[in-house]
């Protein structure tokens, strides 16, 4: 009786609690966006004034306000996750949509990457310069150049040829037009990923509301991923497309032509993700081990040939050479990466080449273990999520949006450990940002 009463008591509190968490999520997002619109902040890249109409309300965004808003958002996100099963579907969808739209209309947040995307597109389309051979400093007279991050002006693009081709139609729109185009691409990719996450959760008899909230309300997804219009969201869209097609083929009652076609499309979608960002390839071995059929491999192979041919025609051999771009990026070292944090823990100033080798060896061991487990019946979606998470954790160059790769897969995984692990890694990433809050430099 007491348990029932307590349960009823909790249920009666649910709408009020959910309302509070929703208000905190919306308020924190609005705070970041409105203050960010004022500009002149180390957290807001120099940008054309696309959100200046919002700037009358806020104040210059400093680290302190941003970090407090981010921590409040993260706390409310955990709260709403705990209530996910009890809130209505309409509420979950409305909250997710509202957060995404608030960020969409605001300024570019945290990162200058989107201006590199635009610069590479303008190099190819406006200036006829191969972005796989030169950095944006080759177009130093172009209006976008002043917005490119100073660390990246000499760096040729590391993105896949499919992404570069997708960005080309935006180049003639000018910097502001291209920026809105990139933001719209990111919003649509996010919405598509969320729709597919919902669909896949239902196909797996998991709670789609929980999966939607895990991804669509996630602070790093909304503030960092969508806020920075990162192309990682387009990669996750392709990955989730591949997962949805593979799950649909699994559910088909008998082997038929439709099933083989879906598996081929799934393989092609993985290849599409890979040609956006090379890490997308992580999904393919697990689909092959699960399906144990040639169709996904055939789809991936045909897509690879077709896209490589197009990339070769447009960019030459450098556009096809994803491996060298991947090797170059793997050598980067950033202060937010776990290997660097571990090096500091042991009193070393940073990571050395031998550490890179050890990390690669560790990653290979993890992937081999997961492949063996998948062969012996382990959930292939969970194995894919673990692999993408392991890539992010072992990388010496960890950015917030790298932790998004595994998130939609973890949300629909049958092994809840990978979801907890992904959220824990994201939590540690957020905690690691808080030093300016504890000891501001002024």
């Amino acid at each position, binding site marked *: 009786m007491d348990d029932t009463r307590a349960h009823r008591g909790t249920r009666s509190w649910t709408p009020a609690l959910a309302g509070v968490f929703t208000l905190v999520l919306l308020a924190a997002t609005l705070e970041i966006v409105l203050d960010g619109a004022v500009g002149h902040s180390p957290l807001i890249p120099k940008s054309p004034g696309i959100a200046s109409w919002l700037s009358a309300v806020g104040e210059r965004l400093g680290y302190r306000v941003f970090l407090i808003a981010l921590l409040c958002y993260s706390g409310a996100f955990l709260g709403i996750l705990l209530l996910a099963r009890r809130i209505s579907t309409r509420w979950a969808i409305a909250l997710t949509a509202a957060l995404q739209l608030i960020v969409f209309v605001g300024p570019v947040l945290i990162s200058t990457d989107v201006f590199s995307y635009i610069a590479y597109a303008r190099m190819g389309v406006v200036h006829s310069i191969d972005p796989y051979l030169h950095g944006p400093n080759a177009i130093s007279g172009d209006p976008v150049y002043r917005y490119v991050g100073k660390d990246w002006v000499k760096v040729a693009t590391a993105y896949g040829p499919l992404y570069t081709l997708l960005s080309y139609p935006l180049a003639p729109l000018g910097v502001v037009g291209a920026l809105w185009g990139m933001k719209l691409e990111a919003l649509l990719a996010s919405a598509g990923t969320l729709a597919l996450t919902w669909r896949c959760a239902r196909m797996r008899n998991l709670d789609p509301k929980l999966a939607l909230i895990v991804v669509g309300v996630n602070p790093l997804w909304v503030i960092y991923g969508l806020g920075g219009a990162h192309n990682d969201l387009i990669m996750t869209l392709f990955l989730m497309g591949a997962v949805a097609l593979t799950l649909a083929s699994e559910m088909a009652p008998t082997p038929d032509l439709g099933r083989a076609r879906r598996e081929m499309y799934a393989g092609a979608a993985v290849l599409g993700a890979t040609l956006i960002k090379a890490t997308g390839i992580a999904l393919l071995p697990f689909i092959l*081990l699960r399906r*144990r059929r040639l169709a996904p491999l055939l789809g991936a192979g045909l897509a690879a040939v077709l896209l490589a041919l197009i990339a070769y025609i447009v960019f030459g051999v450098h556009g096809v050479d994803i491996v060298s771009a991947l090797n170059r990026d793997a050598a980067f070292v950033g202060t937010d990466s*776990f290997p*660097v*944090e*571990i090096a*500091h*823990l042991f009193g070393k*100033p940073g990571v050395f080449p031998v550490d890179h080798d050890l990390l690669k060896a560790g990653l290979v061991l993890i992937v081999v273990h997961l492949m063996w*487990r998948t*062969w*012996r*019946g*382990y959930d292939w979606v969970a194995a894919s999520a673990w692999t993408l998470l392991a890539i992010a*954790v072992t990388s010496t160059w960890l950015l917030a949006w790298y932790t998004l790769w595994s998130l939609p897969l973890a949300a629909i995984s049958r092994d809840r*450990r990978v979801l907890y*692990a992904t959220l*824990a*890694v994201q939590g*540690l990433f957020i*905690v*690691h940002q*808080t*030093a*300016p809050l*504890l*000891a*501001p*430099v*002024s």
Partner: protein
Amino acid sequence: MSKSPSASEQGLAGSPRDRWGWLPEWARPLERERRGLGSLRLAETTILILLAIFLAVASVNDIVQQTHVNHRLSADLLTWRTLTGHDYVNLDTEQDVKTHSTRDTVCGNVSPGAPGERAQVCLMLAGAVVKGVRSVSGGYYLPPYRADLRANRYGCFGLAAEQALCALGSPPAGSSPSPSLTLGRP
């Protein structure tokens, strides 16, 4: 006590008709995991928990270190402002990333203007933070809009002069004069 797998758990893998039948049983693919893998799962979970604790400790340690660095950088800025008498916000701070010492260099305009628009005075700071400031061990000047490279530096004093960090003997045309500033704590 692990149960032996049912036919459905093994899927077609256990069937003689299966194309993987030539593999030994332990290596055949399964549609679903066998029951009785609790010990493997337990081992994985234990490793994951230990790894999570390790990463958490590394993250917290890094934040603590970063707060110490931030405390030191704040003292650097205050020292520069106190010694030059300019209460500027936009100062450039550079840490010693080559030898990983705690010697920092802070540069700022000698007169009001946008960052880098005027000649810059750079101070080399070292030692512990005492009463919110650090000790000045040396310094040099830079012409407007020039990077902090040896080729652009002039007016070295203190440690900068001892280490010959300046390539220019006198201020280039249009640059400010280069009086030596007081060494030690301001």
